[in-house]
């Protein structure tokens, strides 16, 4: 039984940017028995090919796109792809995932993984048309926004191509930069910076091949039941109606919604920020990624500016709203738009702005240092101004784009409220509300990550009132110190 009739393409594309050679190789069937899905495959190649102590932004750090055996089939929510590399933010293992339409196209083009190694001296894009692979000059794309680069790539190669690109932030090698497939993002951990260091602006891929499953009859039955389970699930219904933000009220009620840079666990205006409120005011329609019936993505049109975005999702609403004490939805939408355009992670940006606002509150930074921005809690204009500076890397943004850990080094005494683990900014669940979250952040290989175990529901602290939580959590602190891998 070959890998090919078990969902795999049995083919890995290796692109060496240093000598600009593209080669393919087969998967090792014995090794594949030990690996689970795309993450397993990516971790295997990263483990095999990276050099100890290599700088994440050096040519020695391989960058790997992966898909799993289910990608391209009718299995629900299987159209995602992952990127695996060494993170410039955490200096350790990074896997970041993205929905959209790139994953299955890469699989149909005939690849389980694309390994990008080395580095180029001039900007390049990788063009994959099934088995035809070549690198081409990307001088006119370099410096452009993600939307423009995507548009230009599609105009050049055709609508049948799917793209991933980095924005100007990735080119600048900001450790909070991500990569973008249309409006979907592999945001966390600075994957964009690694591609930026290799001077690879993006990939355009077209795939007209096919994917086989081993037993189509049983596969179809299982897929049909899985879809039915999704349709008959309360949770999925809520995701469908109110997007990922449907849980905002719940997280707030549990005292786990980090407010004003984690100073509190509950936001007094949380009712204005729930998915329901967004649906009533902004969301116009739902959109779904490839083969996904859930369609948790919502489109929001700003009213005062001529922009519309896919989102904001729960983490973005929290990071740019709650975490900065902001309820100005227009500001959140526009900041999200800027992040997408310039290619940075909204969770990290929201965290950085929240951190800066606390610096201002504690009078550790002056308005002059912030280029005149009055970064007070709840100021939506300040959020937009700071986001723009971070996204463009201008003025104070040059420092801010390096992430909370780096910024806190410049402001002695601020380490205690720099909310990060291993250099990755924290996501939207307050560790004080559930101790397990703290443990999860502390021991996760990706730093403070909301996708590594969610002990959220197991035990809230029942006796205390959520609002009485203090941020300085001795358990989290000791765990972080004990388990953190520091570079």
């Amino acid at each position: 039984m070959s890998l090919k009739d078990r969902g795999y393409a049995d083919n890995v594309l290796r692109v060496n940017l240093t000598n600009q050679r593209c080669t393919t190789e087969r998967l090792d069937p014995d090794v594949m028995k030990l690996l689970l899905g795309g993450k397993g495959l990516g971790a295997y190649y990263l483990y095999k090919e990276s050099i100890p102590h290599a700088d994440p932004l050096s040519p020695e750090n391989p960058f790997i796109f992966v898909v799993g055996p289910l990608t391209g089939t009718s299995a629900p929510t299987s159209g995602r792809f992952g990127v695996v590399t060494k993170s410039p933010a955490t200096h350790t293992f990074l896997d970041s995932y993205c929905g959209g339409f790139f994953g299955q196209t890469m699989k149909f083009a005939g690849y389980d993984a694309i390994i990008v190694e080395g580095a180029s001296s001039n900007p390049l894009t990788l063009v994959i048309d099934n088995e035809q692979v070549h690198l081409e000059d990307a001088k006119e794309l370099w410096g452009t926004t993600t939307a423009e680069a995507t548009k230009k790539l599609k105009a050049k190669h055709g609508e049948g191509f799917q793209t991933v690109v980095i924005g100007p932030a990735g080119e600048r090698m900001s450790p909070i930069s991500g990569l973008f497939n249309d409006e979907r993002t592999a945001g966390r951990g600075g994957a964009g910076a690694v591609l930026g260091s290799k001077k690879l602006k993006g990939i355009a891929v077209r795939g007209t091949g096919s994917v086989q499953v081993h037993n189509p009859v049983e596969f179809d039955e299982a897929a049909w039941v899985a879809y039915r389970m999704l349709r008959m699930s309360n949770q999925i219904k809520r995701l469908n109606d109110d997007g990922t933000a449907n849980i905002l009220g719940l997280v707030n009620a549990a005292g786990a919604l980090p407010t004003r840079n984690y100073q509190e666990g509950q936001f007094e205006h949380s009712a204005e920020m729930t998915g329901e409120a967004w649906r009533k005011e902004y969301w116009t329609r739902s959109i779904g990624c490839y083969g996904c019936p859930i369609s948790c993505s919502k489109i929001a049109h700003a009213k005062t500016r001529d922009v519309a975005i896919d989102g904001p999702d729960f983490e973005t609403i929290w990071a740019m709203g709650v975490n900065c004490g902001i309820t100005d939805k227009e500001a959140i939408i526009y900041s999200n738009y800027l992040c997408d355009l310039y290619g940075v992670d909204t969770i990290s940006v929201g965290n950085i702005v929240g951190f800066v606002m606390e610096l201002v509150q504690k009078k550790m930074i002056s308005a002059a240092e912030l280029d005149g921005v009055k970064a007070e809690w709840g100021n939506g204009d300040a959020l937009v101004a700071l986001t723009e500076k971070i996204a463009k890397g201008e003025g104070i943004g040059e420092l801010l784009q390096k992430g909370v850990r780096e910024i806190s080094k410049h402001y002695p005494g601020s380490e205690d409220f720099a909310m990060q683990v291993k250099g990755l900014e924290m996501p939207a669940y307050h560790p004080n509300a559930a101790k397990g979250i703290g443990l999860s952040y502390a021991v996760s290989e990706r730093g403070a990550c909301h996708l590594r175990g969610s002990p959220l529901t197991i035990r809230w602290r029942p006796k205390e009132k959520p609002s009485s939580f203090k941020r300085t959590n001795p358990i989290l602190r000791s765990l972080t110190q004990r388990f953190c891998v520091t570079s």
Partner: protein
Amino acid sequence: MTVSSGKTTRLNRLFNPKDGRAVCVAADHGWMSDPTPNVLELKRILGQVVLGGADGILVSFGTALRMSQFFEGKNSPALLIRADWMNMPRLGGSNLSNILPVVNFKKKATSCAKDALLVGASAITIYYFIGYSDEFEAINIEQAACFAKECRKIGLPLIIEPMAVGGMVTGVNVTEILIASGRIAAEIGADALKIPYTNDVKTFKKLVDEAGVPVLVLGGAKSDDPRDALELADEALRAGASGTVFGRNVTKAQDPRKMVEDICALVHGGMSIDEILGTGIKKRGRLRPVAVNCTGCQLCEIACVHYHSTDFDQSSHRLRIEYKFRPNEPRISKPIVCPLCEKCVDACKEEALTLGSGGYLVLDQSRCNSCGDCVTACPLDLVMCDRQGIPLFCDMCEGDPQCVLWCKPHAIVLTQPKGAEKHVS
């Protein structure tokens, strides 16, 4: 197992003596959660349910008193009373349903078997929680055993509803725990079970076999598609279940009466789902896109490809999702489907491509010379040639279009336009 005559009499009222099956409707919501619209309109809905021919209705004690009219008369449904209360879904509106910590989780008996008997109940239903802490499980068992004892004394059937929730339950072991809980409930003294489906006929059969008492399958959250609930019931019956206790899938249905009638047709009438819903029969019609409903997930394309081939790809679909990119905006999608304009039929000089008697396009492969005229004739660019030069066109999956079946937001629908008949020879 010897059952007292009282129990037998009352079980016979619930389970149809001819086939030993029962169609029950759970309407005890609002008892532990927020009043949702279906709860507020319970009177109207229950009227519909009775007209639909339900064998039993599960309600709280208060509802049983207030709406006793539904349970009067010779052919009225059997009254099932929910005899305990728990606080888990109490704050349903604010989504706290599943996050109560174990220490805050409470379950209390709210009425006794005798009271239920006095208001004319044919059985009582209680929860049995499995998967939380051991102490909580012990309390549960004690309470259930207490109910069982009471019921035995007065000859009232006891229906136990095992709930596999809590920290010990994971996606991996939930089926195993459910199977065990069914047997435990039967050992405690349940005369029937109300239990969720395991989503697999094989494991549910094991559950039914091990329980050894009649098993009624419950429905869970309301699906937008009534077919889902029927499929679930059908699979459970095939596994040996004795009927259904659907709640929200009935009470929240657009037409609760029709829903109950459909379930009865399945459970008692032995009809197939296709017969009940009128699907499966090849229907004449045309595909119509409803762009505003499209989420762009491309499941229609996947279904289209997979119907015509065992493999998956994204290049041989006979309809497509078109994306519109506007500046500063995310993509907007709409389905492009074959409107049966027959331009390809007109273009085919060999008369290989024709509109068949079923109302969909058919190709006579022996006549096709792969000239590609049909490909160029299609104004929507939906016809293409495969590697052998054979045209791929929308054949409406021979009258049962899969795109319509898979598109649950209804962005592609099957319509019967006026004058469709005139095309048919």
